[in-house]
Each structure stands twice: as C-alpha cells, then as structure tokens.
C-alpha cells in the first residue's frame, strides 16, 4: 500500500537516513526498531509529511506520491499517533475523537451524531470506557492511548503509524493496546509500530524492520526470527 524506497535525509553534518526502504502492505503490522539515533523518528516524520526527504521515492499502490505537509499525508490516508498523544485532557472522549473535525450544522455542534459515531467506533475496536462523557484526564494511560488510536481512525485512514504506543503503560494496559493494534490489522489497515520494547514488538508484529545508523540493518518475519538475531541487527554485533 505505502512504500518508501531509498529515502535519504541529512541534517547539516548528520546523515539521519541513508537509502532506507520500507514497505507497508495492508493487513500487516510492521515493527520499526533500532537504537537511539538509528533514524526511526526521521523516517516516521518523512512518512507523516512532517519532513521532506532529500532523496528517495514514496509510492502508494505503486504510484509515486508527494508528502510535502502533514495535510498531504492525511489526505493520502496516512494517520500518525504521536508519543505524546496530543489529547485535550479537559475535553471528553467524544470531543477529543472529533477535535478539529467536528460534525456540525452551520457552526452548531452535532453532539448526538458525534456521540453515536464515537460509540460505534470504540465498540468496533472493543475499547471499553465506562463513561465517554468524562474528561480524558479521568482515564487511565491505556484508555488514553486507545482514544488517541481511535482518533487516528476517524478520518478512515489506510495506514496508521504508532510512535511508542506502549512506552508509558503498565502490563495490563500494554496488553489492551496490543490487542487494539491487532484489531487494526484485522481491519485491513497497514500498521507501523515504532517501539523500544522488543517483547511488545515480538508479541504484536508480523514483520520487524531494523534500522541502524540511518540504514536498513535487517528485516525479519517475526515468527521465524530469534530475539538474539534482532538484537544483533540493532547493535551491529554478530549473533
């Protein structure tokens, strides 16, 4: 669906990305792993239209596309959930899901239509929140992450990028979020997960792509790989 070929990006003297390629087919969870400074964030920024690469090609369904702005990315169906979630804690779940994209008639909010869609969306993702009318500040970390992910789906994207979705969560909440990621895959979305946590990566991904110093340093089918091989690819050692 979305694929990047030989992407390069240089910040001054630092070569952040050096000919990196990545393929995101529908219905697959791809994990992007690598040490700090491996170029994960830069690649995500390229795919979400925040950063324009110096060189390389991005294709959607085999056709080259331009991702000049975050808006371009959204228009092409690429939705990104950033690590800091960007939720308004004082607003309720419904308001957060439709933030900036409120259902309206003239300028008047359509509360009931939004709440109906919000319940349908959360229900289809099996996200359980007792009362979706309470401010997001009252929710647990896992619930907030779920709301942020659900919000990424409001625009009906085809590709969802999740930046460190389990970084701040406890064991049980991590399990909830990983379940949610599997459901995204089952909906036929292409999912890219950036994570430091190899246990989570092995639990949820179909394929692991390793970056090291701005280059592709290995690619594994998750079920056929060993943790040692992945770690070796990340650190550049030999297994």
């Amino acid at each position: 669906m979305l694929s990047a070929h030989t992407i390069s990006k240089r910040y001054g003297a630092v070569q952040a990305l050096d000919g990196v390629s990545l393929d995101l087919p529908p219905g697959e969870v791809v994990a992007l792993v690598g040490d700090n400074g491996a170029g994960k964030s830069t690649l995500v920024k390229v795919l979400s239209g925040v950063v324009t690469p110096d060189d390389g090609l991005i294709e959607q369904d085999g056709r080259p596309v331009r991702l000049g702005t975050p808006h371009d990315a959204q228009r092409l169906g690429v939705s990104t959930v950033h690590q800091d979630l960007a939720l308004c804690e004082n607003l309720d779940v419904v308001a957060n899901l439709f933030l900036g994209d409120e259902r309206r008639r003239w300028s008047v909010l359509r509360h009931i239509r939004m709440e109906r869609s919000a319940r349908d969306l959360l229900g289809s993702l099996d996200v359980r929140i007792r009362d979706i009318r309470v401010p997001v500040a009252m929710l647990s970390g896992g619930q907030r992450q779920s709301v942020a992910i659900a919000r990424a789906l409001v625009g009906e994207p085809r590709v969802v990028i999740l930046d460190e979705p389990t970084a701040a969560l406890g064991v049980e909440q991590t399990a909830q979020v990983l379940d949610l990621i599997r459901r995204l895959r089952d909906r036929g979305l292409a999912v890219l997960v950036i994570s430091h946590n190899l246990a989570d990566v092995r639990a949820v991904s179909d394929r692991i792509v390793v970056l090291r110093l701005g280059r592709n340093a290995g690619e594994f089918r998750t079920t056929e790989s060993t943790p040692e091989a992945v770690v070796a690819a990340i650190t550049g050692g030999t297994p």
Partner: protein
Amino acid sequence: MTSLAVLLRKPLSPLRGAGRTDLGAWPVVAGLAVIAVVFGSLNDRFLSAENLTNLALQMAATGTISLGIIMVVLLGEIDLSAGSVSGLAAVIMTILYVNRGWDPVPAIGVALAGAALIGLLHGWMFTRLGMPSFVVTLAGLIGWQGLMLYLLGSGGTINLPFDGFLARLSDTWLPAWAAWLIAALIVAAWTAGGLLNHRLRRAADLPVPSSLALALRLGALALALAAVVTVLSADRGVPLLLVIFGALVVALDLTLRHTVFGRHMYAVGGNAEAARRAGINVTRIRLIAFAAASTLAACGGILAASRLAAVNQSSGSSDTLLMAIAAAVIGGTSLFGGRGRAYAALLGILVIQSITNGMLLLNVDSSVRYMVTAAVLAVAVALDSLARRGQPR
C-alpha cells in the same frame, strides 16, 4: 497536603468537568446561603426587596466585565486591562453622546468597536509578538486608563442627561407580567430543549439521562426564577440591566457549549499544542477571545456609566478588575484554562457583590472590605490550584 488535595478534589472534580458542571454550582450556592444567613442576621435590611434589587443593579456591570474575563481565562490567559478598557469605552461613548451630540446607539457602537480593536491589539501583541498576556494587559491596564484620563481632560466628570436613553437604561423596570412571561418562556424553552435532547438520544440509541434529573433541574430553575421575580417585583420590578446581563450570560454559555468556536476555545485552553495539531487555528481563537474580552468589558463599562449617569476619573478603576476576576474564579472558572462556564460570571459576581453589599450595609470600612474581597479571591484560587494538583494523571 496530598490527602487534602484529594479530599478537596473529591467534591470538586466531577463538578468541574467541561461537560458536566451542573453540580458545580452547589458549593457556590452553599456559600450564598451562608452569606445570606450571616449578613441577614447582622442587618435586617440585607434581605429586603429593596436591597436585593440594588444588588441586582450593582451586579450587572461588573458581571458583564467578568464574562469577558472568562473568555481569556478559559484559554489559560489573563486580561488585567478589562477595568481600564471598560472605563475608556464608557468615556468614549459619553463624549460622542454628550459632547458631540451623537445618537446614543452609534455612540455605543463606536465605543464597542474601539474596545474590540483594543482587544485585537492585545491579542496581536500576545500571539504575534509572543508577549505574555499578563504583561500585555498590564500595560493595557495603565495605558488605557491614561488615555481615558486624557480624553476626560481637566473637567474630570461628564454627566449623562437623566432623561436620555442611557440613563433610562438602568432606570427601566419590567412590569410584573412581563417578568413572569419571560421567566415562563425561559422555563418552557429549557423544558423543550431537554425533552428534545432526550428524544433525539433515544432515537440514536444513546444512553438517556434520567427524566427525574431533568425534572429536578427544571424545578430548581423554575423555583429560582420565580423567587427572583417575586422578590424584585415586590420593590421596583426586575431591572432591565439584570435582563441584559442574564441574556449575555445565556448567549455566551450557549456559544461556548454548542458551537465549533466554543469547542475550540476549550481545546486551546486545555492543550494548545494538541489543538494546533488537530488543525485548529489557535491564533484566530486567541485573537477572538481577547477581542471578545475587551468588548464585553466595554459593555460592562457602558452599563456602569448608565447606572451612575456619569463618567468620571474613577470609571472602571479601583476594584472593578479585582471583582471581575474574583467573580470568574469563584464561579468555578479555572485560571489554568480549559475549565469553566459562562454561568461562573453570574454565580461569582453574586457572591462577591453580596459580600461587598453586605459590608457596605454594616458600614464596614473600605480598608476591611478590600481585605475581605482579596481573601475570598485568594481562597477561590487556592481551591482551583489544589483541585488541579489533585487531578489523576
């Protein structure tokens, strides 16, 4: 300290959410009851129809300024210039109306437009130049008062003609039948809204709030309105000034809760960065909020001038600003932004004006009045800060 914060949060937190502040009025209502009992027992004139009518008149001007304060406080900013802008607008209006012989309506229009421009200037300095709103409006506090004194010149006082439109504005009283009709219409409109909401929610297969709660709330509203109309009709009648203030409160509350603009106000106040990333034009929202704050301050200044039937060098000065900010915070608007409703202005000004009025009746010295007002403000802000700290993360 933490346990205290949790204790304080327990009764406050469900009340302070953006969506469900219906219970949020209860602490303030309890405070009002205490004030009524204390001052009522100290002075038997405090609860008389005449004094309560005076209270209603005194509330309107500062309450309107407080509405404007709420607009910027919802964004987590502050407007310290509201008092000065209210005085300046009143002076501009009076000079055009009295000295230049304009019709009152265009004079008011020019004053409001001038205030809106002042607000836009504040907003521009805040958004484009990146100056803290505290400093921008502190400069405004001094600067606009200076301009007002300059415009007033050496005379110092301009009287409004007693039989003119503006003076009559605050000397117009609704006849009893009109007051009852308005009260009945308000209750009917609210009932219709509540029933329609129930029906639409049931049609959309959404959880429907209990009919009992709706009935109770409508009963409370009807009772409160009936009490106000009964008491005020026993004296001179319901003052037009109170109706204007009430209409502004309701209009602003509906705007904040039911329009896209209002939703974006709360979003910017809660998390400006998240709002920006969601595609909301944060700068535009901020400019509108500052312009609205100054315009509402000007409305308040004009109402105050009407009540005094004059403008003078102390128009909009002294404790007007402090009272307006205190009213907003006491009513439950969080100084940290994103929480609060327009009704805060009504409830807050009722509390702070009752205290002031009660102390005036008891001939308490103004030195003590200032200290008491400041203490009430400090307590309200302290509660706000503790409630915020106690929030679950």
